[in-house]
């Protein structure tokens, strides 16, 4: 069985409360619940299978994880008991500056050790399986390993799974000029547990992840290939804008059901 669902956003709460048939699971952003809102979290947990997704644990920052962020993250996990938790293969801060958003890591042996150790720390603290997500970046990072070898070894060394953001894979392939299907074939299918997808945007010849557009046909074709290739357990539609058109969001989820149904 593959769960199809949505990234929970407060702007969608009324629609989600109406229990739309298309929404079969929810992904909670941990930082959105750092300030509390416990009743809401518990109510969602009682209604839907949940996954907790982090934005700011900054697993790629050398040194120990930030204890305050980790404590708050674990607090959210304890309150909603998700099936698994996820974070990004990225850094958002260093010892000098909090950049606040995701930045790429160099696929190197040294970074592999840092990231695998931090993924294990997160899993131990949460007592949940951890999935790690590929990001999109304007910077193409070269290291002493290929990106796909890095991801395979990361999953094996850290005992974690991959949250494959199909949109990010598509965007990087267009911006950096590589074949996303060849990239996919280099990833061990057993590592791919969950997917993210949302339509991309194009600006001045550059592709961007604005999380605001319906899924384009070429992206949907790539999703079909991923779903045929790997034993995906969940697909999350990751919209961060244009929430007013819930009919469109429901239609997007139906399209995802259709892809899974064809497998």
């Amino acid at each position: 069985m593959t769960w199809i669902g949505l990234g929970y956003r407060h702007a969608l709460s009324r629609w989600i409360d109406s229990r739309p048939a298309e929404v079969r699971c929810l992904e909670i952003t941990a930082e959105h619940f750092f300030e509390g809102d416990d009743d809401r979290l518990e109510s969602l947990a009682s209604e839907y299978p949940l996954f907790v997704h982090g934005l700011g644990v900054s697993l790629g920052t050398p040194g120990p994880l930030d204890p305050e962020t980790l404590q708050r993250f674990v607090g959210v996990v304890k309150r909603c008991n998700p099936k698994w938790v996820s974070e990004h293969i990225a850094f958002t801060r260093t010892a000098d500056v909090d950049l606040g958003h995701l930045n790429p890591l160099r696929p190197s042996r040294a970074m592999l050790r840092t990231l695998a150790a931090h993924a294990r720390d997160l899993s131990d603290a949460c007592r949940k399986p951890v999935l790690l997500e590929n990001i999109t970046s304007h910077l193409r990072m070269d290291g002493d390993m290929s990106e796909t070898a890095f991801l395979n070894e990361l999953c094996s060394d850290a005992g974690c799974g991959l949250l494959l953001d199909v949109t990010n894979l598509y965007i990087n392939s267009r911006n950096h000029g590589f074949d996303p299907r060849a990239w996919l074939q280099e990833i061990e299918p057993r590592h791919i547990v969950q997917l993210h997808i949302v339509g991309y945007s194009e600006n001045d010849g550059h592709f961007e992840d604005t999380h605001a557009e319906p899924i384009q046909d070429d992206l949907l074709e790539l999703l079909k290939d991923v779903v045929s290739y790997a034993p995906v357990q969940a697909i999350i539609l990751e919209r961060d804008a244009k929430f007013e058109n819930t009919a469109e969001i429901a239609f997007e989820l139906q399209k995802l059901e259709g892809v899974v149904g064809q497998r």
Partner: protein
Amino acid sequence: MGSVDFTTALGKLLSDGEMRRVFAQDRRGTAQRMGVSADDFEAVVSLDNQALERQANALLKKRLSEVRELLPLTFRMIDDPGVLFLNFAEAKWPTGHRRHAQDAVHFCRYLIAKKIKICRSEYNRLAFGLEGKRLAIHAVGDIPTSRGFRFGLQILYRRHQRETAHFAIYC
């Protein structure tokens, strides 16, 4: 050679436009002055300038988009809010999980210091959310209503530790 790793060096470059400009002209000298370690030195000096600039701009645009959502009234009131924000943003990076609200409050203070008119009631509400006060009362001339802005007393209070509320008494 120093002990600064690749990720820390990249963070410095992404957060500091002046450093990126110097780096574009003298990569090795800048990397040396940053104290980049021998292991990561070549990787840092081979960073693509244009891609670095695009990534840095993407970070600022994401901050701008978050702050625009928190300050819709102020953004409508001022000319070229995006340009003003970008001038402000690179010098001050907010920290922690409340960074977007912090960013918005700091941007308002930057505008106030430049004597640019902002929506005070919007600023008061955001600043109160970040402070520990239980109650604040402000006399303001820009409380938004369905029929435009009105003068009145803006009363902000804290229901619980993390939950704030507000109402207004109009003059």
